[in-house]
């Protein structure tokens, strides 16, 4: 039974996005923060992890039991188990792509969602698309394993527009990062 490991997840995400965003100011800020703050918020859960909560895919939430993989413009689409906001797929973008003129935030909050087709748990990065007014279509609010502000990378209320030209929130994507 695979146990959810938010620590490994944080590292993976950091590698994934920070590594590709050298042109953005976010990288230097992340680097600085990592040096300055040992308990940097993107990797804060090492101690809490000692509790080893049951996060196995088998313990399915209501969302997971009813999730589908056919229509990514519906809140029930499996990747949206912890999304909050307008779906970019309804706003001219795609499940993993920004609408025209919007900018993908290099960092994001994350979720662990179960694909109904293979039963596997996947790590999903909810990368906001920024720099345009609130799309206000297909508003969804998945809350599987969503926590509070002191664990910001697992909180879906934060405006995750860091390192983008503008911090205006437009919509949210659900980028598949890998297995959880």
């Amino acid at each position, binding site marked *: 039974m695979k146990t959810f490991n938010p620590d490994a997840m944080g590292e993976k995400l950091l590698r994934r996005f920070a590594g590709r965003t050298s042109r953005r100011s976010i990288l230097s800020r992340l680097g600085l923060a990592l040096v300055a703050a040992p308990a940097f918020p993107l990797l804060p859960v090492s101690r809490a992890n000692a509790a080893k909560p049951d996060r196995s895919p088998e313990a399915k939430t209501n969302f997971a039991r009813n999730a589908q993989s056919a229509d990514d413009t519906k809140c029930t689409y499996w990747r949206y188990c912890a999304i909050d906001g307008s779906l970019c797929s309804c706003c001219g973008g795609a499940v993993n*792509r920004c*609408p*025209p*003129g*919007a900018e993908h935030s290099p960092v994001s909050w994350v979720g662990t969602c179960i694909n109904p087709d293979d039963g596997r748990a996947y790590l999903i990065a909810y990368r906001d698309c920024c720099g345009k007014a609130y799309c206000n279509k297909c508003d969804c609010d998945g809350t599987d394993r969503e926590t509070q502000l002191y664990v910001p990378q697992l909180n879906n209320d934060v405006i995750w527009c860091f390192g983008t030209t503008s911090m205006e929130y437009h919509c949210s994507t659900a*980028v*598949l990062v890998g297995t959880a």
Partner: protein
Amino acid sequence: MMKVQGKSSLSAKARHTAAAVCALALLGTAGAASAADPLQPDPELEAVTLSAPKPSWVFVERGFVVSGNSIYDTDTGKMLGMVEASTLSDLALDPAGKAYYVSESIWTKGWRGTRQDMITVYDAATLKLKTEITMPGRILIGGRKYNFVIADAGKTAYVYNLDPASSVNVVDLAKGKFVKKIELPGCASLMPVTGVGFSALCSDGSLATVKTAAAKPEITRSAPFFSATNDPIFDNFGYDGAKQQAVFLTYTGQVYTAKLGATPTISEPFSIQTAAGVSPADTKPLDVHWYPGARQGLAYHLATGHAFVLMHMGEYWTHKAPGTEIWELDVAAKKVIKRIPLEEAANSVTVTQEANAKLVLSTEGGTLLILDAKTGAEKFKLEKSGGGVLRTLEP
């Protein structure tokens, strides 16, 4: 450059579709054999880009509280993107399809600070900010089609101002520069007049025509032909830039055709109700008739010269009431050739300038309704997608 971007957009779309197909294939495999490889991580994708605007597109001004212009394709019912815009701004389309223009007013600190009036220019392919053209003040009203109009095949913009004296900013879009301000006392709602400047409707019931080229702009006025206070012409009228013609509709349903030019000519009016074989309306408050109304109550299909008018039953001075029927009026024939009843009353109507035209309506409940103009059949019903002014691409 546009061509290249158009191509890149298409190929990006093709790649995206391919990826989607791949993903589905993978899912299919995974479903059949659960021991199969897990899904692969998504590739890093740039934001979607757009083709040049198409006649099937509609631009929906979202409104006073939530600003921005949503773009929908009436062929698919899908939202394609949004042209960013401040509250009470106005959108205009570059006739060459390379840019979107937003005439807007922004303060440096939200509701306070320094006022900044500008035309903000967005690239039509990427919807990214290209430049800002600063200018003097503009009117704050929203919901009007003719406060920001493009003339001279996209080279000039006219921007209406009220502060509370009225004037017009002339902006050179090609050079990205404000040119001059023309005082326009007592008139509003601008119609570009080729080779001359623009015309506007006036409070004395006349049509003013402004020659903009001269150092001191010359304003002439037609003889008054309508009553601006008793039976006003709706300021969201019909306008045909190519034929240099406007179709005016009054509160009671009188229809005028104006041939624009240095010396415009205005037709005798006729009643849209008479054209439909029903009793003509009047200005007496107590009588009940079919009246035109709504916020953007007239859509004009240029190729056929047909106007689509939102009509409602009621008394006089209900000119903002939403329409419960659309009347299709053959303006030249002075004949209403079809009446389309609406399930939900509509505040705005526009028509795509396609051969198989579609009507786009914004309803009282905020739904965007796309109908086949020929049959009235509903093609798409998009909830939470309506708004203020609806705009389509004109040839």
